[in-house]
């Protein structure tokens, strides 16, 4: 039997058209959360079904796909999603950032600078940055429509009052194209500057919350801050213990059963390239 069990990339063409319309709307209004009719996918929500649906809708047979989770290509989540697309779309896959045309990610933006020929797809758990202070959906919609973003600074104020600095380190809110405040998904704030003026198209899919939003190529993304407490990214005292770079986001890992710890690149592909191991 040569009849494929699935349509290309699992979703049927009608569903993909619907999702592409939402993606186009999201690109047309950068940072705006476009609603879409999220479909059941053959995996749990926590696995990034929003990102998977976006990837499925932009993927072509000629694409080369890279999937990362926390910066690594070999975690369970990344491996499962990559396998899913190999099985349902038959596309080529890669671990190398510069070889990929579509990159689906959770929790990181690759260290290797992206290009105009690439699409970065983020898996988003909670798309609404105002949810923290405003549980009502009708109210958050009005706040976005009227650009009432003062409450975002209430959150940052609380950080400084409590910790002496802006303690938010993940999902750090930013303003897209000087208009919509958005949640860049749980990437470290280290990655926020990469969102800004990025040559690649960046798409964000939230499956459970049924929202898609986008940062089109070369769009300004400004992280929120105070004049006297400007936005800053994480810094480490030491370089990566494996490749020696000081330019990347480091994870602390336990090396052996004696509890030896070291700091290494969270982007495993970037680290391997620095070591000349690929």
């Amino acid at each position, binding site marked *: 039997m040569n009849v494929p069990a699935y349509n290309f990339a699992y979703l049927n063409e009608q569903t993909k058209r619907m999702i592409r319309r939402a993606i186009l709307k999201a690109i047309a209004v950068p940072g705006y959360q476009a609603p879409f009719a999220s479909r059941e996918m053959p995996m749990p929500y926590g696995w990034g079904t929003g990102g998977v649906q976006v990837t499925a809708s932009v993927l072509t047979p000629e694409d080369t796909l890279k999937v990362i989770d926390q910066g690594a290509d070999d975690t369970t989540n990344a491996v499962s999603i990559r396998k899913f697309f190999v099985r349902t779309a038959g596309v080529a896959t890669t671990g190398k950032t510069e070889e990929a045309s579509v990159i689906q990610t959770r929790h990181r933006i690759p260290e290797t600078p992206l290009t105009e020929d690439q699409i970065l797809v983020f898996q988003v758990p909670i798309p609404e940055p105002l949810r923290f202070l405003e549980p009502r959906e009708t109210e958050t919609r009005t706040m976005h429509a009227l650009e009432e973003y003062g409450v975002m*600074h209430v959150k940052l104020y*609380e950080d400084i009052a409590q910790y002496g600095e802006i303690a938010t380190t993940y999902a750090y809110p930013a303003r897209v194209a000087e208009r919509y405040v958005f949640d860049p998904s749980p990437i470290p704030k280290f990655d926020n500057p990469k969102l800004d003026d990025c040559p690649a198209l960046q798409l964000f899919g939230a499956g459970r919350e049924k929202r898609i939003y986008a940062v089109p190529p070369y769009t300004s993304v400004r992280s929120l*801050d*105070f004049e*006297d*407490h400007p936005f800053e990214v994480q810094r480490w005292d030491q370089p990566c213990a494996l490749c020696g770079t000081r330019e990347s986001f480091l994870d602390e890992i336990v090396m052996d059963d004696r509890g030896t710890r070291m700091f290494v690149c969270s982007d495993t592909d970037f680290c391997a390239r620095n070591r000349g191991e690929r």
Partner: protein
Amino acid sequence: MSPLLAAETLGKFYGARVGCRDVSFDLWPGEVLAIVGESGSGKTTLLRCLSGHIPASSGKVRYRTRDGRMVALDEMSEAERRMLMRTDWGFVHQDARDGLRMGVSAGANVGERMMAVGERHYGRIRAAAVDWLRRVEISEDRIDDSPWSYSGGMRQRLQIARNLVTSPRLVFMDEPTGGLDVSVQARLLDLIRGLVRRLDLAAVVVTHDLAVARLLSSRMMVMQQGQVIEQGLTDQILEDPQAPYTQLLVSSVLQV
């Protein structure tokens, strides 16, 4: 001079039921008007119409904006109306939990309106919060505490500070001392009276308590079954009530 707020034959109906009807008055800058009545008299419905929280069924509410225009609330855009509510107006709820953000610190509660109108300097927000807490007699060392840790009276004072930080010209108050102990009420009323005078605030205060009206207001309206049955200078009405219902209220409460 023209009034700050004008109600013109204002009415609110829920089907056949009357919330309030045919209410007209002018409120002048710096003037405190008390709306007095028992529960069900329509005073809270009227307050919600006046403050733009619910749309009126008939009539108009006009407000003189800072640029001197008299603008009807229902002819403003939603953006203008919401901006007005968090800059030039204040609203003090009976239950402070309705007027505060209980999930953030007292300082953030006071600073929120400043941030809403674009203040982006933490130090200045902090300084204003400290200043306003002091003005409502809350110790500076409580600035980072949650309102949950505050007593009822402190919460109410915090709610007032949160409203006044943007120097509004008009504050609506819904039973501002309701539900508090008598001694706490007295202190809060003194504080409100002092602030209103010092800041030359106009206020519309809804209360069932004639003592509150007497202490805070220069003018009052008495409501019964959705209608204003008597209005005039507070002292005059309390001294010489005309409507039988007002006479009853005055004799039953103020004799004590």
